Structures are given as C-alpha cells and as structure tokens.
C-alpha cells in the first residue's frame, strides 16, 4: 500500500506528458494524415485511403519507389560493412596491445561528431581534386580516381562509405563490451584441448557475442533506414536522384507542401523498421530456444 504513495503517478507524469504530446501524438497524427491528400496548394483535404501508398509502391521507375530502393540498398550494405568492420576492430583491440585504449578512442571519435559536419567535410575530401584522389595517386592507383559524389556509378556507394567511416567505431565499442563478458577460462581450457584460433572464434567468441551482434545489427538497420544528414549534406539526393532516400524525399515533399505524401513516406520507414525488428526478434528468440 505504501508503494502507491511513495512511487506515485506524479513521478511519471512529466515524462509521460512530454513523450505523449511531442512523440506519440505526432506519430499517430502522421499515420492519419498519410491517408489523406493534404496538399498546401489545394483548399480541401480528402480521405483517400491507401492511395498514397499505392502511388509509392507502383510508380515503377518513379522517384518514390526509387528512394525506397536506395534506402534498402544503403541500409543492407552499410549494416553488413559496419558490423563486419566493427567486429574486426573489436577483435584487434580487445587485448594485447598496450596502446589499445588510444586506438579505441580514435576509432570511436567519429561517432561523437555531427553527421552533417562529417558530410560537409567529406564533400571536400571526395572532390575530384581533393585529398582522397591524391592519396590514390600516391599509392599508384590514380586509375581509380573519380568525382566520387557526382558520378552516377559512385555516388550512392560513396555515401555508404562515409556512413561506415562514421559508425564502424561505434560498432566496435558495443562488440568490445560483448567480448569482455566472455570468461577467459573458456579460451584457456580450449587451448589445452588443442583448439586453434579459428576454432575458438567459431565455438566460443561467436556464440557468446551473438546478443551483442544482434543488437548492433538491429540498431545499424534502424540507423540505415533513417539516414538523412549524411546524404543531405554529401549529395542532396543527387546526381539525378540516384542517392535519394526516403528521408530526403520526405523533406522535399514537406517543402512542397505535400503533407499527405510526406507522412505516407514516413509511415513507410516506420513499417519497414517494425517488420525488420520483428524479423530480428524472431531470429533471435528462435535460436535461443534451440539451446
């Protein structure tokens, strides 16, 4: 009984009100508006059901479907690269080296910087006359030089590379925390039994690391689907819409006053996120029950 008085609803109300008013209500309102043709240039708003979504998914070759495709491509490839590079760095910097803390600090640093600022910086780094091509030339690869952000073949890949540059160290940090929870005795015991490094990695490290790996994969996926700042500052969606992702298109539609469509695109990100999160949940719990 004392609990009710001591930990009353008064404690919860401030956070609950803020979160409900500025987060939940806008999210629900967005879902409702996504079912309308609200457009600032027209006086009336009509309920049009799922028409916005039909338009997004049927305009083959059109900007909407293309942006969904780019977003999925961006997400899929960056998730794989961030996770693998993060894992590699974590394994390299887990133990041994005395200077490992310094290197951890360096690799993790980009995570603390604003994605927008990283974007602006890499606009200069990736210019045709910029330092990246100069480094390629120095190591004898001048044949690979490109105008990375403005050529259609390299633009989307370059934005992915910058995103991986930004987040690999963050993946490393989470995976390092996972690695450090593995008891050292397992490695010692298996070494006595004659297990090699590779076998230890497959039989001890990976199974123990699975929760951390799942976590970074889920979070990388969420980050990938939401990408905005990096693309907006690096390419602005160009050249010719080849790096347009859902969130840059949301901003464009919003700017043109097409609120119905802007919200429908937002709902698409939401739905893809939920579907992927549920799938990951399934994979995770499915594997767990096998043990």
């Amino acid at each position, binding site marked *: 009984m004392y609990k009710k008085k*001591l930990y009353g609803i008064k404690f919860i109300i401030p956070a609950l009100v803020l979160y409900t008013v500025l987060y939940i209500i806008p999210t629900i309102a967005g879902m409702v508006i996504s079912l309308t043709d609200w457009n600032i240039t027209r006086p009336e708003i009509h309920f049009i059901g799922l028409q916005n979504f039909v338009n997004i998914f049927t305009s083959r070759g059109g900007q909407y479907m293309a942006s969904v495709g780019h977003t999925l491509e961006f997400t899929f490839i960056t998730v794989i690269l961030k996770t693998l590079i993060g894992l590699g760095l974590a394994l390299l910097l887990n133990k041994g*080296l005395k200077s490992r803390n310094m290197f951890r600090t360096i*690799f*993790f640093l980009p995570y*603390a910087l604003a*994605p927008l*600022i990283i974007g602006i910086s890499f606009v*200069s780094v990736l210019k045709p006359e910029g330092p990246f091509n100069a480094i390629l030339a120095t190591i004898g690869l001048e044949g690979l030089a490109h105008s990375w952000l403005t050529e259609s073949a390299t633009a989307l890949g370059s934005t992915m590379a910058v995103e991986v540059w930004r987040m690999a160290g963050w993946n490393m*940090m989470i995976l390092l925390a996972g690695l450090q929870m593995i008891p050292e005795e397992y490695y010692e015991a298996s070494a006595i039994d004659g297990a090699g490094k590779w076998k230890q990695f497959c039989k001890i490290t990976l199974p123990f690391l699975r929760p951390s790996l799942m976590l970074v994969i889920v979070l990388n996926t969420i980050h990938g689907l939401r990408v905005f700042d990096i693309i907006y500052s690096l390419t602005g969606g160009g050249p010719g819409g080849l790096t347009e992702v859902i969130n840059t298109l949301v901003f464009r539609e919003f700017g043109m006053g097409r609120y119905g469509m802007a919200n429908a695109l937002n709902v698409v990100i939401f739905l893809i996120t939920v579907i992927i999160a549920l799938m990951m949940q399934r994979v995770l719990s499915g594997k767990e029950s096998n043990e």
Partner: protein
Amino acid sequence: MNNNMKKVIKFVFIALLSCVIIFPLYFIIINSLKTVEESRMLNFSLPSEFQWGNYIEVIKAGSLVRAFLNSMLMAGVSSIIAVLVSSMASYALSRRRTKVHNMLYVYFFLGLIAPVNYVTTLFTLKFLHLQNTYLGIILEFATLGIPFLVFLYYGFFENIPKELDEAAVIDGCGPFQLFFKVVFPLLKPATITGMVLNFLGAWNDFVTPLYLLSDNKKLGMTNSIYNFFGEHFNDWNMVFADIVLTVAPIVIIYICGQKYIVSGTSGAVKG
C-alpha cells in the same frame, strides 16, 4: 622474439588503419589555417603562413558567438529536463512494476524503434504556439532523449536496494524528498552518461532544427554551419574553421566524458 614481431606487425597494421580516421581530421584542421587560394587546392601540405585570423573572421561572419550560446542553451537545458523527467519516471516504473507500469515501460520503449515524424511534430508545436521558440525546441530535444534515458535508468535502479527507501521513509522523508535527497544522488553515473549523450545528441542534431526552427537567429552551431557552407561553399578555409570551432566543444566533452559515453553505448548490451 616471434611474439614481439607479431605485436609490432599488429601495431603497425592498426596504426595504418587509424590513419583512415586521422587523415580527414588533419586535412580539415590544416586547411582551416590557410588562405582562401591555398585552401582551394585541397591538399595536405602545410600552409605557407598560418592564418589564425581565419578563426576570428569566421566567428564574425558566421555569427558563431550567438550560435554557440544557442547550442549551449538548447542542448544544456534539454539535457537537464530529459534527465530529470526520465529518472523520475523510471524510478516509479521500476519500483512499482504492476501490469500498468510494465505497459508504460513498453510504451516508452516504442520510442527507441519508431522514427520521429518531424512534419507532424511541427504541426503539434504550431498548435501549442511553440514553433520557432527556444522552449519548443528544448522540449523536443528533451522528448527525443526520454525513451533511451528511461531504459538506461530502469536498468540502473536494479542496483539500488529498496531497503534504502524504507529506511528513509522511517526517518520521515516524503516521496519527493526521498527521491531527490536520497535516490537521485546515487544515480550519478547514469545521470552523467545521460547528460553527456543527450547533450551530444542535441548539439549534433541537424534535422530537428531544420524542420522546427525557421528563425536563423535561434539556430545552433550545427545548423549555422550548414547555412554558412551554402553561402561560402568555395571558401574552404572558412568552412573548415567553422567546422573546427563547432566540433571543438564536442571533442572536449568526448575526451573528458568518454568513459560515460562508452558505458552508455555498451550499457545497452547488458540490459
């Protein structure tokens, strides 16, 4: 000997890898100290003469003092609000744990998954007559931090024994006195982690002010830099000087508070 060789090779390999991070940073800093013409070459060479004046000039041209104060105000106050309301909510949620409380916890947790809808958030702020105000953006930054902070504190409360609360009550503490005088000081590690992460998040947030603040005078440093870049996209020395000044406070916080950032980042693993 063999072992030492391995260590040296590993060290060299990692050092080379870290150049991938260091080179762009060095490039930005060194070019922020060149003349406009030199900086347009976009190379790694040292400036013929260090142009420290670039920094003074960019502070004036970019109205950076104002932007700095805006950033401090918005990131600072929103972090304090976020930490206060989240720790209070998390406290009641983790101590009570009735069905309703567990549902509320899941309700807050949803915020970690669902993306923010900025368009309708703007409409909501307009409805509340808070669009284009410091208060509006501060409340929004605070709200964005709530889901993660509730989650962070929730895990932390498991380590704070309930017997402590009971002892304080016997000593005559009221509910709020108990929380603020006894419990809250014990949350210090989680609170610092939350403050640092929220501050970085708000300082670095570009998209929230892009949608919610159209008054240029209220923009913080991150958004100011975007506008500055738009006007001076060929004056790389100035753009880079602006970048260095915007990033400097963050790097200081990063170096001083790294322990807390890491524990906040990896804390999710144990949760």
